[in-house]
């Protein structure tokens, strides 16, 4: 996202407004809503294509987590970088990816971000700073620390965000990476999207601490808990962490509490959570509904504006899927391409 331009209401009123209304223009906020819809519809589109047998493999949908992806990425500049997870479509879009190249990837086409080699679990957009989703839980965390080391050594001013889930916080890689980032005061932000479960295993059954943010103390870095379904809260925490990182003060751990509406992946019998729990999150805490209502309350958008966004998004998705369908498949003779760097 571009550097924020400030809205300019009366100073007194402004001070009481939630963070985002002080920090971003109405146009920027409408764009955020647009992108949150884009993520949601992308996931739904991908799901439908999967059901219809157009996409193979498996996928992990981030429906319900859109405010978290958008809130974290909002304060980032284009050259800032992220590492993402198996549940990475939202992060990818939030960091600026084009949905048509994402669909093309899922369809295994040469026009996809990974030329059909990576698929959903490795979706990346290096030009926009997305160093890639990762099929290995917590695999991207030390990689993000390495990218932050590059930023510090090469003085690029870049900040790196590492997204990961609650399940990932019990991996050794989490521990080792956070420790090194803190010792070396690197410009990296650790974002734990706690959706309550690692696959079927609840944080209560897997994690010996109530809030994952409490683990930040073990690495002498700030640990911040936000409601991951409220865009403003997430964006504000991210903003502070980015400032801290850019100022050379080191890393932050943000725990963004959220929920995934869908099953873990396409093979989930959903036996570990109740219908009521899911229903509650969908009806009462949907991040898009919450944000849309708020924008309407603040007079930043009206029903027609929302409708226009929805239509634009629907078009973008339809076009993206068409692009993917129309794109060429890789030639099987190229099966060993990209294993090594081709001589120039």
């Amino acid at each position: 996202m571009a550097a924020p331009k400030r809205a300019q209401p009366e100073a007194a009123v402004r001070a009481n407004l939630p963070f985002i209304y002080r920090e971003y223009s109405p146009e920027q906020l409408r764009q955020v809503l647009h992108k949150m819809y884009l993520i949601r519809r992308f996931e739904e589109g991908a799901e439908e294509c999967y059901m219809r047998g157009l996409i193979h493999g498996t996928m992990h949908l981030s429906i319900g987590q859109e405010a978290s992806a958008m809130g974290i990425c909002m304060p980032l500049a284009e050259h800032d970088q992220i590492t993402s997870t198996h549940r990475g479509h939202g992060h990818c879009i939030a960091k600026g990816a084009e949905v048509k190249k994402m669909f093309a990837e899922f369809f295994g086409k040469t026009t996809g971000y990974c030329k059909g080699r990576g698929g959903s679990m490795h979706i990346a957009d290096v030009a926009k700073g997305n160093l890639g989703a990762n099929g290995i839980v917590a695999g991207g965390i030390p990689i993000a620390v390495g990218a932050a080391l590059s930023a510090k050594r090469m003085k690029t001013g870049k900040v790196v965000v590492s997204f990961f889930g609650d399940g990932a916080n019990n991996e050794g890689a989490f521990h080792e990476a956070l420790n090194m980032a803190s010792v070396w005061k690197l410009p990296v932000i650790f974002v734990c999207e706690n959706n309550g479960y690692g696959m079927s295993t609840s944080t209560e059954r897997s994690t010996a601490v109530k809030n994952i943010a409490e683990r930040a103390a073990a690495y002498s870095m700030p640990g911040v808990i936000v409601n991951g379904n409220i865009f403003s809260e997430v964006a504000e925490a991210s903003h502070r962490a980015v400032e801290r990182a850019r100022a050379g003060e080191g890393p932050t751990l943000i725990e963004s509490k959220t929920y995934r509406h869908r099953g873990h992946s396409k093979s989930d019998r959903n036996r570990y959570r109740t219908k009521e729990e899911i229903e509650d999150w969908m009806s009462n805490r949907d991040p898009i509904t919450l944000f849309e209502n708020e924008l309407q309350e603040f007079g930043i958008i009206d029903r027609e504006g929302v409708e226009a966004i929805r239509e634009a998004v629907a078009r973008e998705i339809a076009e993206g899927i068409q692009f993917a369908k129309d794109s060429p498949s890789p030639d099987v003779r190229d099966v060993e391409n990209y294993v090594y760097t081709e001589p120039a």
Partner: protein
Amino acid sequence: MDAMVRELSYAQAIQEAMALAMEADERVFLMGEDIGVYGGAFQVTGDLVERFGAERVMDTPISELGGAGVAVGAAMTGMRPVFEFQFSDFATLAMEQIVNQAAKMRFMLGGEVSVPLVMRFPAGSGTGAAAQHSQSLEAWLGHVPGLKVIQPATPHDAKGMLLAAIEDPDPVMIFEHKLLYKMKGPVPEGHYTVPIGKAEIRREGRDLTIVATSIMVHKALEAAETLEAEGIDVEVVDLRTIRPMDKATIIESVKKTSRLLCVYEAVKTLGIGAEVSAMIAESEAFDYLDAPVVRLGGAETPIPYNPELEKATVPQVPDIIAAARGLVQGTR
């Protein structure tokens, strides 16, 4: 084949073995990620948690290294853990405990302990899960003294070899091809074991021996049918155990057929075929060879996502047929 024998899927056969072992021996328990209420990523543990409770069908946090270490420690102190990696690729996180601890503990301690540990590794490509979820790494563990490494290819063997593994005093690593989980086959009821370290001749033949592992056994059998129509009589040996390898069965077969093709899914270079070929060269069977040993292994690439590319990275039936034909007709 006994008509009374039921058909079970490979996954069901494994599940039955685990259930039998847990019933018979209270030291046996299962550990892994999402093996409880979820039933395991491939539904291998299924509903066992309902029968045996969460203490014996233990969900672990996502902590492969630590989890493997817990299994090693439990095995050293009287329990008999059966540890499931959700995908064999994640065992890369636990190689330390597998290779430095489980494999060497008895040796390092001069025989003072045993490590009766079983680890299960869902492996292989074909599910569209791309490079980090599709590897075949059995050759790594086959290179490690102290471990036993098996690759059952049928539901019958999956059950019998798992039961043998659980009863084995030493660490046994089981590579299960994910595409086999749904394959059905006859599985006797009750307790039986299939010995670790014994290959099995799946089809007798005179013209050519194919040594195959895991899912490639089935592809080799399919290829053999076609080849039979062409007048090429293929013997198919299911290797079953990577370490310790059943050299005698392979040698005998090669002495009979004079030709050997080794088919496996893992990356060709330094895969199991290298060992089979080198072993034959060092054996008495060498002098019986009418043609050099040929390997058909995976391409020298990570597994790609695109389904056509994915298929192209591992041997398929037509590849086996072509290689067999080439060997017998002497056009290599």
